């Protein structure tokens, strides 16, 4: 069963095509991640689904209601955390929560159990002005405020951007809990490591979805044979590789060079080892590895750019 159905959605601003032929479904109780760089169209999509922006064309149905006709009813059923900071910095933590509950004509007490795992962490700061909270704390409060009316669908536009890795992990733990209440979550992020925690992912690139699938399937569909090389001369090697004529794709990944071969892999690997030796590159290890999602996205984005250039 799907709670959001989007078909052939298009949106442009003057001459700029922000979204092109977007189609997808959000299933009940799933966490659906939208990943893409700034400017890919993520916020435009969220604004449309939150009924704040009208699409140029396409069909959008949310909980069986039509976006254009029933937008007022839809608003009561969704919780929306916009990409730009949405709380009032000059109100306290508790005042913000009360304000959002009042706006949705919802009581705090009856829904407190649901937000408790998050709210518990905020209680020591409940009388602090929101402007004085750290980034991670602000986002937790924003999540409470988006949940306080017990929505069926939660729309989270980059809830963890600029938040440190530990707070980000805590935030995703909370999303898993929210999911267990049967709430469906649509969440966007620029961080590749986070999307492994989604049930399904869509990769948004210049206003188009270039893939929609589960994380394991995306990894399975990786086209190349991926190798990792550990060297202390990483950036020197990258410069050398600019002149390397082989059908391969390479990029740094932490302390490693990731290199993917596409044709005649065995021979290509031998030629690559020769190349390393000829250029006297010292390396500790060089072996085939299973790609992670970031490798897959890099491959997909590169392929997509080659097609469109």
């Amino acid at each position: 069963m799907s709670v959001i159905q989007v078909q052939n959605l298009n949106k442009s601003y003057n001459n700029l095509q922000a979204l092109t032929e977007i189609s997808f479904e959000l299933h009940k109780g799933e966490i659906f991640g939208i990943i893409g760089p700034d400017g890919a169209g993520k916020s435009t999509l969220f604004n449309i689904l939150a009924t704040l922006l009208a699409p140029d064309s396409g069909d959008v149905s949310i909980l069986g209601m039509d976006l254009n006709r029933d937008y007022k009813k839809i608003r009561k059923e969704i919780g929306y955390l916009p990409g730009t900071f949405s709380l009032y910095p000059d109100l306290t933590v508790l005042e913000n929560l009360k304000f959002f509950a009042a706006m949705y004509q919802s009581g705090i007490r009856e829904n407190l159990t649901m937000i408790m795992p998050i709210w518990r962490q905020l209680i020591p700061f409940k009388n602090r002005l929101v402007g004085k909270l750290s980034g991670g704390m602000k986002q937790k409060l924003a999540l409470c405020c988006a949940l306080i009316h017990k929505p069926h669908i939660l729309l989270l536009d980059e809830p963890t951007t600029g938040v440190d890795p530990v707070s980000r992990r805590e935030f995703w733990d909370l999303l898993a809990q929210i999911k267990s209440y049967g709430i469906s979550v649509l969440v966007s992020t620029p961080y590749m490591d986070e999307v492994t925690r989604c049930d399904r992912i869509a990769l948004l690139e210049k206003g188009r979805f270039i893939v929609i699938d589960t994380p394991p399937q995306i990894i399975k569909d990786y086209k190349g044979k991926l190798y990792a090389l550990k060297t202390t001369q990483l950036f020197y090697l990258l410069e050398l590789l600019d002149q390397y004529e082989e059908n391969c794709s390479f990029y740094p990944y932490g302390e490693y060079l990731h290199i993917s071969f596409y044709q005649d892999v065995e021979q290509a690997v031998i030629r690559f080892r020769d190349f390393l030796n000829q250029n006297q590159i010292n390396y500790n290890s060089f072996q085939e590895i299973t790609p992670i999602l970031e490798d897959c996205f890099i491959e997909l984005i590169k392929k997509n750019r080659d097609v469109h250039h």
Partner: protein
Amino acid sequence: MYTIEVHNLTKRFGSFTAVNNISFQVKRGEIFGFLGANGAGKTTAMKMMCGLLLPTSGTARIAGYDLKTESKQIKKEIGYMSQRFSLYDDLTIKENMTLFGTIYKVPKQELNERIEGHLTELNLMKHKDQLVSSIPLGWKQKLAFSTALLHHPKIVFLDEPTSGVDPIVRREFWSLIYKAAAQGVTIFITTHYMDEASYCERISIMAEGDLKLIGTPTELKIQMGVNTIDELFTHFVNR
């Protein structure tokens, strides 16, 4: 030779200690990663190093100048870019670079040559008259970095320069960082991407105002008995 020397730097706001007695040095041409959780005191420390905020106590020499008495000279010797503010949207690429170059008093006869040098390197010469509002974020961030280098600063402070850019551009950005460092520019960078921490020659981790740890990524992992920078980070930041 050190371009950044920080001694017992402390900043208090009322009863709250944002930066607590931190000391470290950064060498010329080094890429130094400044890591820490939100609210750990990184921004406050960076503001002091850029001469924008006076310390409560402690001293620092930045590019050879004293933090307390020579902050004007410091500002001339450093470059700065952040994700939040980089370039003016309603100016063209070339106008932005000319503006910043002029503010930093790059000699007129050299400015044009330097700008064109950077634009050629970035493959953006043919876009030089385009408004910055119309260009992709990835270009913007690379341009902002080049712009921060126009006046040949000794140190560039980069505050989350790669937030929100795609994984390919993120890596292209790091190639630019390496080129600048190879030419002797000291790079002082904050990031929330842990794989990027591995690209730094040395990193430090701040938590609750303290500088908890400093060293090369490999050293620190061995010292703390962990396999990844991510684990290292989690260890110090876990509350």
